[in-house]
């Protein structure tokens, strides 16, 4: 094999309190396809940030074409020929495909007028599109392209930069089967022309189809390598699992009782051909695991009345409830702690008091006028009960830490009479201490008879907190695990559709 053009030598990256990468070495040779696998939180995105020059390593060296350095800038990374195709594509919807490929680098004419030279732009894009087998015109507006076509535009952009390494982050997560096949063919073509590819995916069959070798990351460390012949889904799962899961489980106070929250035959707009049946029993925490994009958040939004269900019904304590808006769900006692805390969970610019009482401020009013002493008393009670660390209830929520913001979201619901609460990624971006408190609160709620459904992509959390785990895969429940059957492998196998 030829010499690697890019090498990471013992790279570590630590943030205050967290070691994201620990002594990772990786060599990229010209024309090879490296599959990178690992669970959420294994360190993949930190590795990508270092390769893209977005952040520098705390320890270790980077060697590009034999020249060693401590860190790269974004310009260094582009200069070295490293390009990204992100999961969330960074394209301008309002421009055509060709303009997107050469955005910021348009061929100009007209001297000082700096007009865009459309003819040269098209001429420059055409060979790139031909190389990728693109079947649409460079003049097509991006808004009119499918996801797969948009991805091709991104790849064309990467090629136009004379890239030697294209890093693809979950590129197939929203592609159809034929689109995926075409992408795999494009990867093979890139490889044939000497371009290297790092392919990050949870879709293990696709990794097997395209990778020359696989690198597994776990807890920020390289967990192992697989040579071409060894790449099988079970072998990759072995690399991903085996994390040091802390024992955080607290058993329920009582045996689980009857079903409190049930989803029956629920179909969401994202997966119109799938139905979901779920039941959360009295006294239990049901974990809902799955890959990002498996349809868990969509399910939560449908249950809470944010998006309309295409079919199905929600039952509380056996009785169907009609939910067509969050207002209906709240009236029925079904609450949601949303994934997007800052955007949907709290109003950042309002004080703790206003946030906590917002859903039931009507009940605190007489003739439409808020009874302020009652409101303050309620907000203060909840602040103390949840241990929200803030100078007072008049502190703006935007100035609080993530953990305290999440407690404000919880306080809002706990001040009412919850029958069921859906937690969507309840501890994302929250420090360890606050995590612990939120787990205790969930357990307390479950013990008090509230149905707790916890959506989480964090394996430690799913296994450590749930009494049962339902795993979603592409819009359907792939399986439900009892506590005695919990294992990282089982959850992962169901999540990636390997069972």
């Amino acid at each position, binding site marked *: 094999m030829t010499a690697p053009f890019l090498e990471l030598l013992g790279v570590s990256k630590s943030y205050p*309190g967290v070691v994201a990468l620990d002594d990772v070495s990786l060599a990229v040779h010209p024309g090879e396809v490296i599959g990178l696998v690992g669970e959420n939180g294994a360190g993949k995105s930190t590795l990508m940030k270092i390769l893209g020059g977005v952040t520098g390593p705390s320890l270790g060296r980077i060697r590009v074409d034999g020249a060693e350095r401590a860190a790269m800038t974004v310009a260094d990374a582009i200069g070295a020929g490293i390009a990204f195709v992100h999961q969330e594509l960074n394209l301008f919807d309002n421009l055509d495909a060709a303009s997107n490929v050469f955005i910021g680098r348009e061929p100009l004419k007209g001297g000082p007028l700096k007009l865009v030279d459309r003819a040269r732009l098209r001429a420059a894009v055409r060979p790139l599109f031909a190389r990728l087998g693109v079947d649409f015109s460079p003049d097509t507006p991006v808004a009119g392209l499918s996801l797969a076509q948009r991805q091709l535009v991104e790849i064309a952009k990467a090629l136009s930069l004379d890239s030697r390494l294209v890093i693809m982050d979950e590129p197939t997560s929203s592609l159809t089967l034929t689109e995926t096949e075409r992408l795999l063919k494009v990867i093979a073509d890139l490889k044939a022309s000497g371009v290297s590819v790092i392919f990050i995916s949870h879709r293990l069959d696709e990794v097997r189809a395209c990778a020359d070798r696989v690198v597994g990351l776990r807890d920020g460390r390289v967990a192992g390598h697989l040579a071409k012949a060894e790449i099988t889904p079970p072998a990759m799962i072995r690399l991903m699992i085996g994390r040091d899961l802390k024992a955080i489980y607290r058993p329920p106070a009582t045996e689980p009782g009857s079903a409190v929250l049930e989803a029956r035959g629920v179909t969401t707009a994202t997966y119109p051909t799938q139905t979901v049946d779920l039941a959360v029993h009295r006294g239990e925490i049901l974990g809902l695991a799955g890959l990002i994009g498996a349809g868990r958040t969509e399910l939560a939004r449908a249950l809470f009345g944010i998006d309309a269900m295409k079919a199905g019904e929600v039952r509380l304590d056996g009785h169907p409830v009609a939910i067509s808006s969050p207002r209906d769900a709240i009236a029925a006692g079904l609450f949601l702690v949303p994934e997007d805390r800052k955007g949907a969970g709290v109003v950042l610019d309002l004080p703790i008091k206003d946030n906590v009482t917002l859903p039931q401020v009507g009940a605190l009013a007489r003739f*439409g006028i*808020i009874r302020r002493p009652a409101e303050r008393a309620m907000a203060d009670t909840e602040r103390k009960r949840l241990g929200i660390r803030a100078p007072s209830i008049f502190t703006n929520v935007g100035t609080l830490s993530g953990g305290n913001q999440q407690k404000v979201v919880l306080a809002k619901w706990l001040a009412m009479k919850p029958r069921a609460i859906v937690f969507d990624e309840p501890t994302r971006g929250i420090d360890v201490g606050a995590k612990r408190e939120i787990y205790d609160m969930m357990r307390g709620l479950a013990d008090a008879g509230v149905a707790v459904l916890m959506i989480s992509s964090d394996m430690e959390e799913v296994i450590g907190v749930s009494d049962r785990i339902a795993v979603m895969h592409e819009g359907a429940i792939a399986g439900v695990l009892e506590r005695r059957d919990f294992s990282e492998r089982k959850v992962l196998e169901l999540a990636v559709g390997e069972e």
Partner: protein
Amino acid sequence: MQKKDIGLLVLILVVGAVVAFINPRFLSPINLANTANLIGLFGLFAIGQGFVIITGGIELSVGSVIALLGVLFVDLIATYGVPWPAALALMLVIGALIGLAHGLLITRLDMQPFIVTLCGLLIYRGIARWYTADGTVGFAFGQSFPTLDWLTIGRTGGVPHSLIAMLVIAAIMWVVLHRSVFGRYLFAVGKNEEAARYAGVPTGKVIVAAYVICAVLTAIAAIFFAMYTKSISPSSHGNFYELYAIAAAVLGGFSLRGGEGSIIGVVLGAVLLQMLQNLVNLLGIPSSLNFAVMGSVILIGVLADQQFDAYRRRRAAAQIPDHGETTRTGPAEAH
């Protein structure tokens, strides 16, 4: 009272003192009464505009609504002999319907407030001019409505009733905005509509209600203006009044992004605007410079306010480093 309001009040007092010092006529009863009347008239619909601005919207048709309802009202009572209480009630209903239409177009059909109300501005002005065949509407010689006149242009103890009406409505609207459930919803929707929806706030209804309130207050102002001017030529009556309202709100500390503002602020904003107009007259500044003075004061005022805000935030940030949790915070944490 918020800090911003106090700052504005101080500015008003300082400007007033300076003007009174240069030209003592500023404090003459006749000048004060005239200015107070105008403050009442402009304050009425500026308060309404404030409600819309808090939702993050804008209402551009205010001036046209004042013209349209003005000609309708005067024509109904002067030409058709409709009893004025009935005509007044009808104007309020039409106002409410206009607000309802704007609100529904914005919330149900997802149109932009600027576009909806800009079209309203053009449509109502056009209808007003067509209705009168571009002529002037007024009362016949000797025609009078003593009770209505007393209510709208009368004075009690030298205080114009328009000012009293504005202050009464301001007091009611202060309770609505700062003390009621609806007011709380308004601020939440203006700050973060998505989070408000997730908390069960009926966001659509709240926004529609803001436009209805704005249009009804504008209708009330339209009656006062009609009785004040007595004759209305629909091509110029109420021109640019929406901009006065927006200017008053902005001076009063409202953010056009929504979610910020107070009733005291917008009332003080209306006071300052009328004082500036008055100042141009009293200080012998060419009246053609009227708008230029207004524009400059607003520009400087908002700029100073922003600088002051930024300064306060920097100081606050320096004083309170954290709430005890930041040291243990992971990398994904953004403050």
